[in-house]
């Protein structure tokens, strides 16, 4: 139950990729027959990605994943619009790909405003509007948070950005394939996505760039991706991304209802445990995200014990497990450090069933109890 970290690639996705490793291995940028087969496949994938978010195919650029897309936006927009200004607005709860790229830009003389969030992890559109300055060149607010699942008021922010003539980017890595997205209706100028969050391959993603946006390249070189992203195209990966996004969007109407029911079952039952709290928004959250804090204990212990029972989970984001700092997202939501340490994220996926939910509900309370009995912080009545 750690589908927000990464998913397997669906069998039909791998199936779709396979021919492009071997017989159809041509270089799509080369002008002759075998290359043309690859080119057609890449174009088809591009059309699928575009359709999934209501963009035009020529507004989709393939990348090596969410992190590259995020870095591209921040650095590419920053350097391309320096004449207008050097101010960027983002939030305190972004993924590190945004936050660390923003910090790097600060080291290069750009100014970044990190908007606060409320206790549910929500950004307020009014705060966005207030932060706008004449030299603001970019607003980047994630679509849905990877840790707590909170879905941001993207359309409202898009409207504000458009009204002020400022580019609006959203990191939709956790949202694409899980909730409906319409870049036109929501007035999104740029959007990052990554294949391995919706049963596609790892190491391939995309950046949607609305036509007309001024942005520099991140990876300079060959003329691939209409001269916007150099590097021999990862044809099998791109084909897999296309197959996966088409599949995820088709499944979404039913699957999101099914997942949300399981999510709510887990949340309701787990909150019955004493000293437990839901992290993230109670209703505006990803259909697959459960994030709960259990006071007096530490998340890694919970994860290790869950793992013993064959249940994968995460505490904070998997990307952060090499760091020992408590989650910046929970901290930004005002959760105190000691409590933030006891958070567990369960993210449901297409192969999870109600049976899995019942199994977690059987094991997790025992685990909490065991760890609480060892902790010096646990009050007597909870031992």
């Amino acid at each position, binding site marked *: 139950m750690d589908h927000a970290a990464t998913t397997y690639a669906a069998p039909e996705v791998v199936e779709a990729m396979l021919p492009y490793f071997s017989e159809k291995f041509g270089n799509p940028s080369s002008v002759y027959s075998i290359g043309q087969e690859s080119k057609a496949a890449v174009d088809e994938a591009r059309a699928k990605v575009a359709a999934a978010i209501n963009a035009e195919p020529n507004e989709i650029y393939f990348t090596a994943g969410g992190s590259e897309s995020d870095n591209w936006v921040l650095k590419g927009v920053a350097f391309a619009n320096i004449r207008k200004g050097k101010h960027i607005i983002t939030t305190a709860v972004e993924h590190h790909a945004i936050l660390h790229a923003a910090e790097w830009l600060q080291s290069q003389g750009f100014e970044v405003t990190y908007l606060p969030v409320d206790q549910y992890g929500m950004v307020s559109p009014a705060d966005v509007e207030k932060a706008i300055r004449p030299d603001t060149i970019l607003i980047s607010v994630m679509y849905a948070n990877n840790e707590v699942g909170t879905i941001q008021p993207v359309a409202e922010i898009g409207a504000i950005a458009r009204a002020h003539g400022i580019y609006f980017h959203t990191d939709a890595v956790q949202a694409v394939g899980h909730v409906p997205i319409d870049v036109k209706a929501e007035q999104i100028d740029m959007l990052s996505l990554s294949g391995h969050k919706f049963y596609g391959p790892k190491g391939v993603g995309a950046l949607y760039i609305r036509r007309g946006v001024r942005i520099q390249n991140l990876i300079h070189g060959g003329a691939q991706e209409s001269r916007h992203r150099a590097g021999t195209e990862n044809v099998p990966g791109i084909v897999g991304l296309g197959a996966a996004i088409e599949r995820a969007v088709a499944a979404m109407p039913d699957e999101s209802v099914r997942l949300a029911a399981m999510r709510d079952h887990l949340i309701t039952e787990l909150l019955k445990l004493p000293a437990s709290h839901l992290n993230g928004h109670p209703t505006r959250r990803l259909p697959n995200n459960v994030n709960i804090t259990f006071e007096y204990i530490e998340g890694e*212990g919970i994860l290790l014990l869950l793992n013993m029972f064959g249940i994968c989970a995460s505490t904070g984001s998997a990307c952060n497990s*090499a760091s*020992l700092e408590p989650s910046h997202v929970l901290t930004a939501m005002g959760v105190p*450090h000691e409590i933030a*340490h006891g958070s567990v994220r369960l993210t449901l996926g297409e192969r999870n069933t109600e049976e899995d939910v019942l199994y977690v509900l059987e094991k997790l309370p025992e685990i909490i109890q065991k760890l609480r009995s*060892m902790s010096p912080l646990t009050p007597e009545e909870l031992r």
Partner: protein
Amino acid sequence: MYSEKVMDHFMNPRNVGTIEDANGVGEEGNPSCGDIMKMYLKIENDIIVDAKFQTFGCGAAIASSSMATEMIKGKTLEEAWQLSNKAVAEALDGLPAIKMHCSVLAEETIHKAINDYLVKQGREPWGEPVSCSSCGHDCDTCGE
């Protein structure tokens, strides 16, 4: 990432709990990652006859507490004081670099508990506890 020994001591920790009539109690917390370790020692004639712990922390912290309390039981105060975090980590068949400070925490907690005993006895404490950077890592960069 954890050895079988670590997992064993994490899953079946030895010496969890408190000692009602402990005469040496130490508590140490690592503010950088918010973990807290507490040790209760029963000391007779400068020999540790019993040791128990409570830990709020990761798997490595719990396993280190468990192993450290095992290793100091029956030891003299001098011997227990000499127990280094490296010895605890080695007894656990090693810890990942980023988790070495959890074993430092165990060493520090033992020192605190011994000094608590000495002070209660009216004796001089034995000096400053080791610092977190003693394992050769820096808490911020241990990931390397």
